[in-house]
């Protein structure tokens, strides 16, 4: 009986240790072209540093839909989860890791599949389809400062509890 309870105890200690390890930093990658690291978990938070596609970050804390991350050069801030993926992103076909990137679930090859080359080929085959205004649309950007001013002037009180 004693032996069994000891076994149970060591098993549960092992489980606790595993849980503690699992709660440590998790590595994630930036999966969007540009993202911002912010001082607080909010889009209205001050910008700490810009992040780029493929950047590898350590997630040290989760708060709602936001992750507190540190960069390899030691900067810390908050990023929305939708900008992150668990996959490691191989940035070019020349990467040593790229050979396996296209076929494993843990890796993604940047520029794989539908990419700039495929768009160029599509445009050559469909010359009546004009991308001029698509490019112009993408240049229409709103800064967090403009957004905050817009909300304030409109008397809009964001529901804090539901903030993404």
């Amino acid at each position, binding site marked *: 009986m004693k032996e069994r309870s000891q076994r149970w105890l060591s098993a549960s200690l092992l489980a606790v240790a595993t849980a503690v390890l699992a709660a440590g930093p998790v590595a994630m990658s930036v*999966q*969007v072209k540009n993202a911002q690291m912010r001082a607080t978990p909010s889009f209205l938070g001050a910008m700490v540093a810009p992040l780029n596609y493929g950047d590898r970050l350590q997630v040290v804390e989760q708060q709602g*839909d936001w992750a507190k991350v540190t960069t390899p050069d030691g900067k810390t801030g908050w990023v929305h989860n*939708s900008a992150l993926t668990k996959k490691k992103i191989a940035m070019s076909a020349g990467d040593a890791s790229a050979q396996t990137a296209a076929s494993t679930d843990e890796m993604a090859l940047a520029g794989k599949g*539908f990419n700039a080359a495929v768009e160029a080929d599509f445009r050559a085959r469909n010359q009546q389809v004009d991308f001029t205004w698509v490019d112009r649309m993408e240049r*229409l*950007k709103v800064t967090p400062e403009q*957004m905050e001013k817009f909300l304030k002037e409109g008397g809009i009180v*964001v529901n804090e509890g539901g903030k993404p």
Partner: protein
Amino acid sequence: MKTRQDNGWRGGWLVLTTCAAWLVSGCSTVTQVGTMVGQATGVVSADQAESINKSAAAVEKTFQDITPEQEYYIGRAVTATVLSTYKPFDHEKANAYLNLLGQTVAQFSPKPETFGGYHFLLLDSDEVNAFAAPGGLITISRGMVRCCQTEDELVAVLAHEVSHVNLQHGLKAIKKGRLTSALTTLGLAAGQTLAGSELAQVTQAFEGSISDITTTMMNNGYARTTEYEADRGAVAIMKRLGYDPSALVTMLERMKTRLKPDGHDFAKTHPSPDARIAELRKALGTFTPPPVAAARQQRFEQAMGGI
């Protein structure tokens, strides 16, 4: 009465034969069986059945392989295709206001970060229409803006479109199997730059995907349930952002008076405003609308008044 009984019997017989046919052919999903029965009994049309099946099939592996980067390129080509049918409305002030509003809405949606971000553009068309391309390129007709008399109502329209992007409804319209051949090519060519016949094969899958999405968005419409899902998403975003979600109901009431029965727009591609309102009532619940600041109405009229 006799005719109704006859119809009822015929419907039941069709269900039986459909089920028998399924047993023989081996339908692969519960959804497909459901839509076959629905079609046989006349509950759903062939187009709707196709749409439901496509949505269900899209959850499969090939769909998951579409990265945000690929979604971005799909969205660009979808929007370029929309813009080859509809002219953009080149009005700097109105488009700037639309982006201020739309990008703020997107930031408070469940999926605020996409590869290339959310961007909005007005279309120079009297039709009541709006298109949400994968990745967040959203185009809205002047006719649609005219259904809105307040900023809150325009936010409702934008939040509905942002929800379509959040829920990846565009991508789910890509026909099953469309991407399989392209992905096989990619598997073979892993780590190399595509060229020649391999590039041609991937471009073909790309063209087909763009066509599936634009046909669904511009001609066939999504399944009714898909639209209701986007409406529910819009309500959630508006509540979170602090706009009045019942503005979606008042906007739909006005849309109802502006849609023409034979219209080639929301009259064709969306459930009727009445049906959407009935569904919305369930999602709205009891909610005290926040007060509307005078400045909000003033800036809406300044930017969109002449539309």
